[in-house]
């Protein structure tokens, strides 16, 4: 069997006296579409921040395709082949939709400073290539008709799609989606389901998605990790997790079960 794409090995994180992530361990195999669920404040987004190097890991290790990425800075982690989106969008609101994607896409079309300042050499062909690839991705998420609009003026659901397109243009092998369906209505969630499944298949990605919409998780994820108070409380396929007593306790409260 090949190396797992992502492996957390007893990862710890403290915020002052709060043990925000406690000895978290899980493994994602290549091509998995996994869900990370848990109540608010459980530490899901912290896990993403630890993987991408936004926070320093206090204990344990994180391996990406067998390589220890724990000490890497954020941009080094990203260049290894991980991309993520944010719970509260982090687009460049004043730039156009196309520019947002091109900013990410240019990582794969680098040219030198003197070519940039003189517009000679590879500038022309690389800019064209970046633009073309960015447009193709916008087409994929259904935003190509809005390419010249400022990103901040898009409706919320479109901004989420744009963030996914921007993350995809980094050509990652592991994609981390942080609550992609937050604030969407059921129709939009349905569309998003299709989109996530589609890109997972077409781009041969491993995807880890944080989600509150249980129906979305149950429908698209084959592997669900559930955490509460910084610790993993259950892991397995959706049916197994759905009926796990710890999860019912975490979501509904102890009293309900006792009653």
């Amino acid at each position, binding site marked *: 069997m090949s190396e797992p794409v992502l492996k957390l090995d007893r990862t710890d994180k403290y915020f002052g006296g709060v043990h925000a992530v406690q000895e978290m361990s899980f493994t994602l195999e290549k091509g998995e579409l996994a869900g990370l669920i848990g109540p608010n404040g459980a530490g899901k987004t912290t896990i993403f921040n630890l993987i991408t190097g936004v926070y320093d890991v206090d204990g344990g290790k994180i391996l990406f395709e067998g390589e220890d990425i724990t000490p890497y800075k954020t941009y080094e982690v*990203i260049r290894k082949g991980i991309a993520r989106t944010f719970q509260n969008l*982090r687009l460049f*609101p004043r730039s156009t939709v196309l520019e947002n994607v091109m*900013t*990410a896409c240019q990582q794969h*079309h680098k040219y030198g*400073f003197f070519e940039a300042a003189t517009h000679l050499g590879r500038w022309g062909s690389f800019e064209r290539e970046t633009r073309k690839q960015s447009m193709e991705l916008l087409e994929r998420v259904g935003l190509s008709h809005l390419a010249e609009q400022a990103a901040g003026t898009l409706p919320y659901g479109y901004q989420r799609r744009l963030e996914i397109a921007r993350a995809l243009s*980094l050509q990652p092998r592991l994609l981390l989606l942080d609550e992609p369906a937050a604030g969407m209505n059921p129709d939009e969630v349905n569309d998003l389901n299709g989109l996530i499944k589609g890109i997972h298949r077409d781009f041969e990605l491993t995807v880890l998605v944080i989600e509150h919409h249980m129906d979305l998780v149950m429908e698209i994820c084959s592997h669900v990790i559930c955490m509460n108070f910084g610790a993993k409380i259950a892991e397995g396929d959706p049916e197994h997790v759905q009926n796990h007593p710890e999860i019912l306790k975490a979501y509904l409260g102890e009293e309900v079960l006792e009653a």
Partner: protein
Amino acid sequence: MSGYVEGIIILLCVNGIAALGVCLLTGFTGIFSLGHAGYMAIGAYTTAIMTLRYGIHWLPAVLAGGLIAMTVSYLIGVPTLKLMGDYYAIASIGLGEAIRLVLENGGNFTRGARGYPGIENFTTLPIAGGFFLVMAVLMFFLVRSNFGRAFKACRDDYIAASLLGFNTARYRVFSLAISGFYCGVAGALMAGFLTFIQPVMFDSGKSTELVAVVVFGGLGSLSGSLLGTMVLTLVTELFRPISQYRMLIYGIILVIIMVARPEGIMGQHELSPRYIKSLFSRKHRTAKATEGGSGL
């Protein structure tokens, strides 16, 4: 053309080069600096010392002025720009003053507070205009490239930028070094224009003016910074006859523009045929909308 008008145009070109440098740093990379007059001073003194003391031709001296200013800004930037937020702005105040004080107390080498007289008057109109054109074109090209997008990403959201694989600290230092180079060259040309320089010309007032011009013109617009330079340089020159009220008018104009257009003259648009067209079509649309409204 009279010598006076020629002088103003040269001054515009020189100030324009400095404004382009500060615009890249403040307008495109989002770093405020209150010490860029220091880099101009480095450029000016390098040129003065190289041409007068060592008898070197002015052209390599000007380029050396730019390069030394760039090196200094790079060395300052590496430790300070790793930190986020306004740390560099605070550090830059100290830096600008430190450079000025070093020049003032440099003994015989910089000739201290009395200043450095007798510099060759090499900054003629074609020289200043030529430098300005070349450096402006390079800057306009640079912001319309992968580097421009990277700088803007660091400005708008540095966390998102680093999550797109940009080493944001490196880009910030890089932006500072380029702006240091532009200000160094501007200072060197200034020395060749005035033929006399003294440390007090590069005090914090000059630094503030450089930032004011960029904010005034619109953060993120090169042509806006140039327009800002033009307006503020011309205001100082036009009202020279009533010189005791000059700074008053200068201040009032700054206040009026910032109240009426907080985003600066140009916002973050560039002065292009397309922008002018969109300006007119927008006016046209509003006019139409009002007509439609009155018909109801």
